């Protein structure tokens, strides 16, 4: 600032003074840029509504990873721009543009709801902004809509269903009924399950569908009772998961026809499901009681920084931070070196609390999927259902750079 020659001759010379001040401000700004301005991170997540808890857990996880690196990634401090996406797909383009056009963020992080995430994917493809998806499991984001600047640190719905097919068939349960909501996540999860099941010699004898987000299951439960399959596979989450598990038990099916599901059936809802959920087995990329030093230190750090225990969403947010850190460190925080940044992200080995993972050519984690069993209010990991599982990424022709 001292270098700017600004001297005020008289009090009347107001215009000149104003001009001087402006130049000074501009000069200061340019100087700051050269020294390494803050990296702009756009967090587009649900902070109100049904998924608010998930959005907060992801944000906490992400910020924990940053804090562990002294608040800097690749030598640059971070500046956060936050938008509540309200889990409303119709507002997704507008909300994403707020961050990309108005705030000019360097990195987009979001989101939970698949419909909203696909809206973000569309804009990331148009503008080339780096996007990291910390939850939404829609196949398309790392499938037919895959792109060099789009990454995911969570899972695909296929990944959480496929391993269960083999688990079920290996127990001699061959004739299976599936039941889920008639929408993308349900269809993809059941699709993955059927694929794993038929590979292991079982078959789906009937697919039952419930209109989303309806939670009246009684009619279909009656049908399951009269079909008498060897087992039932289901994908429900949130309120639907609570009601389905309770209704299944109340209809007298529990203990007669074993119920299996994707991990979201019992994640974050065990208190509400109570007795009805005990003993249920599900598959997911995280669970309780992973006895590794890595997971332990993460869980301690998280519960120290925030009140409450971390869940799978916190891990995904944390891993988003880890992935971004790996990429930015390779380019020393210069996000304009696009191709080098992408190459570094693709090569990253993420030492995650869930277990180490790398990215597939379509930019989705290649990760272990655990088999978990409900004991009390925990989803206890009992074994690895599938080691290093890669999503088939159908429709994606991208190759690693």
């Amino acid at each position, binding site marked *: 600032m001292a270098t700017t020659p600004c001297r005020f001759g008289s009090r009347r010379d107001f215009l000149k003074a104003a001009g001087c001040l402006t130049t000074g401000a501009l000069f200061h700004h340019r100087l700051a840029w050269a020294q390494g301005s803050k990296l702009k991170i756009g967090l587009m997540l649900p902070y109100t509504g049904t998924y608010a808890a998930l959005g907060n857990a992801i944000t906490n996880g992400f910020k924990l990873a940053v804090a562990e690196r002294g608040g800097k990634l690749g030598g640059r401090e971070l500046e956060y721009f936050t938008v509540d996406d309200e889990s409303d797909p119709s507002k997704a383009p507008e909300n994403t543009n707020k961050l990309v056009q108005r705030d000019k963020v360097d990195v987009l992080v979001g989101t939970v709801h698949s419909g909203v995430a696909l809206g973000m994917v569309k804009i990331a493809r148009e503008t080339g902004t780096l996007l990291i998806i910390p939850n939404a499991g829609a196949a398309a984001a790392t499938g037919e809509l895959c792109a060099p600047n789009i990454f995911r640190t969570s899972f695909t719905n296929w990944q959480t269903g496929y391993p269960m097919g083999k688990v079920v068939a290996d127990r001699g349960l061959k004739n299976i009924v599936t039941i889920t909501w008639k929408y993308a996540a349900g269809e993809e999860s059941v699709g993955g399950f059927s694929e794993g099941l038929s590979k292991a010699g079982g078959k789906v004898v009937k697919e039952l569908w419930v209109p989303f987000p309806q939670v009246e299951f009684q009619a279909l439960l009656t*049908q399951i009772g009269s079909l008498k399959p060897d087992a039932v596979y289901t994908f429900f989450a949130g309120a639907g998961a609570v009601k389905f598990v309770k209704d299944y038990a109340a209809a007298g099916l529990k203990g007669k026809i074993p119920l299996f599901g994707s991990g979201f059936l019992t994640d*974050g809802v065990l208190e509400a*499901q*109570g007795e009805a959920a005990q003993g249920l087995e599900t598959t997911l990329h995280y669970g309780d009681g992973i006895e590794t030093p890595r997971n332990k230190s993460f869980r301690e750090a998280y519960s120290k920084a925030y009140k409450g225990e971390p869940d799978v969403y916190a891990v995904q947010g944390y891993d988003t931070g880890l992935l971004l850190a790996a990429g930015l460190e390779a380019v020393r925080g210069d996000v304009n070196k696009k191709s080098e940044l992408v190459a570094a992200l693709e090569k990253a080995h993420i030492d995650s609390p869930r277990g180490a993972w790398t990215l597939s050519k379509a930019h989705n984690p290649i990760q272990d999927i655990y088999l978990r069993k409900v004991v009390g209010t925990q989803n206890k990991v009992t074994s690895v259902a599938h080691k290093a599982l890669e999503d088939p990424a159908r429709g994606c022709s991208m190759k690693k750079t």
Partner: protein
Amino acid sequence: MEFFIQLLNGIQYGLLLFLLASGLTLIFGIMGVLNLAHGSFYMVGAYLAYWLARQTGNMWLAIPLELAIVFIIGLILESTLYARLYHRDHLHQVLLSFGLILIFEELRSIFFGDDVHGVPVPESLKHSIPLTSTLSYPVYRLFISATCLAVAGAMYLVIQKTKIGMTIRAGSTNREMVQSLGINIKLVYRWVFAFGVTLAAFAGMIAAPVSSVYPGMGSQILIICFVVVVIGGIGSIKGAMVAALMIGIVDTLGQVLLPEFSGVAVYLLMAAVLLWRPQGLFKVA
């Protein structure tokens, strides 16, 4: 056997819908007030059941307590807000009650958070009756049906056979005339409104153990509630009963027989009824 159980499922779902929709049709038919916040009272009822069941540890104690609370909320809302809108356009009522939906959702979020919560089934009704080798029917669902039938019967007796019922019916036909006969119609309206929303809350409360409590539960049920009212004929309690049972059975059997169309079955039913009788099945004059 399966068909019989499915029919039972349909009737049980229909009876619960009736309990919910009867309050809506009562308020609209008698007072001419379009209350979009009706679903919110269903939610309020369910959350109160969750909260009171935890506080008192006893659902039988929670029920009368909760009914009293909601009735008082109804009285307050009617006298401070709704009473100002009787002579206004329906659009104003829609705006007011839509605003109330947002307020109730926000309050729910502040007091109870956004998580799903389970409400335990009372110990005495916890068991199930085995029907086939694999299927049982939860006693609590039978209890819901019986309660709904009892409420329906009581409502019929009060409205058709008592003096207060006569006043209510008269008030819905000719407000001024009833007033000039020396009856305080404002007070009658206030009680009807409070009673109507209490019915919705009661439905939420007894449904809570099977449905759990979760954000947005009121808005979800409101739509199907309006379908019941429209099919049955706006303002007709008898119509609401018939329509609710029709919808319960069509929805249940639709899910089994025509799974591809299960999402639209009830709306097709509504379209068909409206083509045949645009005023609904039992329009009150």
